[in-house]
């Protein structure tokens, strides 16, 4: 009983931290949940991925309610691009069965490294003003990239915002705020498809998923409030170092 309480509280605390950092960096909590659960608690990556992807649904729904209300998220585009991401997520879950856990660690390590580089490059992005009018370009190129983002989401239990936002921002030429808000709106659908498959496989265990959901949700709320007081642009530069260290840790786990 005591072990259970302590474990629940520890996972909850770690998830709050993941939610705060994820929200401050605009990455969501998923990308931090899996490394924390696997590296700190020694949880098997399959369970960590399943718990993470379920928590991603909650954070996406919470964040996108504000984006949708203020019409920052493009609902029509988000739903259209959710077609390849949801199909990709199911393929990702299917692939995870055939993927050696070490490959999952390696892929995660690569993605964390890529996120760190992207974050370091975009550390001054908050100052860039967004134009109100925009025209969607390269729709089918973006559609294809979303399929890949969906596979990654299903495989690693993350929202894949790190792939979706650059696809919309750089390839489809959408303003960064619209890209980020639309990605947040889409992530819930992608995660729901992946999480449903993990749930039916019996990989979503309440003992892990519930504190992760509640923790990330609370952390994301705290992070959103802190964002107005902290210099988020500077934090991105600092946290890119944290991401690099985590990427190295995941790589060590992959090749050990």
């Amino acid at each position, binding site marked *: *009983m005591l*072990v*259970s309480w302590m*474990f*629940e509280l520890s996972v909850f605390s770690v998830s709050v931290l993941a939610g705060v950092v994820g929200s401050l960096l605009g990455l969501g909590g998923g990308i931090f949940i899996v490394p924390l659960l696997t590296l700190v*608690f020694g*949880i*098997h*990556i*399959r*369970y960590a991925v399943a718990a993470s992807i*379920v928590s991603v*649904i*909650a954070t*996406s*729904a*919470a964040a*996108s*309610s504000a984006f*949708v*209300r203020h*019409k920052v998220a493009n*609902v*029509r585009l988000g*739903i*259209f691009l*959710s*077609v390849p991401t*949801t*199909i990709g*997520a*199911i393929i990702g*879950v*299917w692939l995870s069965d055939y993927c050696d*856990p070490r490959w999952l660690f390696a892929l995660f390590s690569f993605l964390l490294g890529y996120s760190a580089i992207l974050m370091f490059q975009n550390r001054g992005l908050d100052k860039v003003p967004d134009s109100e009018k925009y025209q969607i370009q390269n729709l089918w190129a973006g559609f294809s990239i979303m399929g890949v983002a969906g596979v990654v989401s299903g495989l690693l239990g993350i929202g894949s915002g790190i792939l979706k936002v650059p696809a919309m921002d750089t390839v489809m030429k959408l303003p960064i705020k619209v890209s980020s808000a639309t990605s947040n709106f889409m992530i*819930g*659908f992608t*995660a*729901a*498809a*992946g*999480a*449903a*498959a993990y*749930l*039916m*496989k*019996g*990989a*979503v*265990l*309440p*003992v*892990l*998923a*519930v*504190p992760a*959901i*509640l923790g990330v*949700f609370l952390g994301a709320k705290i992070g959103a409030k802190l964002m107005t007081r902290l210099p988020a642009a500077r934090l991105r530069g600092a946290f890119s170092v944290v991401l690099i260290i985590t990427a190295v840790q995941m790589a060590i786990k992959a090749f050990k």
Partner: protein
Amino acid sequence: MMERVLSGFLRIGVKFCAMVLSIGAVLALLAGHPSFSPALIHTLTSGVILEESPREPVVSAGIALLFLLPVGALVISSAFFWVKRERSNAAFAAVVLLTIALSFFLSF
């Protein structure tokens, strides 16, 4: 109008879901339910996927509610698109909805 309904649904849904999950988790821990047992925690490091994972009813209801958030958002969007005669957008929402539904029935 669609945006306001969607946003309201998501905002209320998330709060209700978090409340049900919190109550469920506390009740399960107090009752020493198998889905929150220390023995189960030890299996988490093994990576063996359980055929039948133990379920606690209130927690299961909370997780089911969580899945209803994106599903509900898609149903609302689809209905609004249909009324606005945006048939292609309504069809895309229906495809996403079907894909999510399909993932519940696929067994890998």
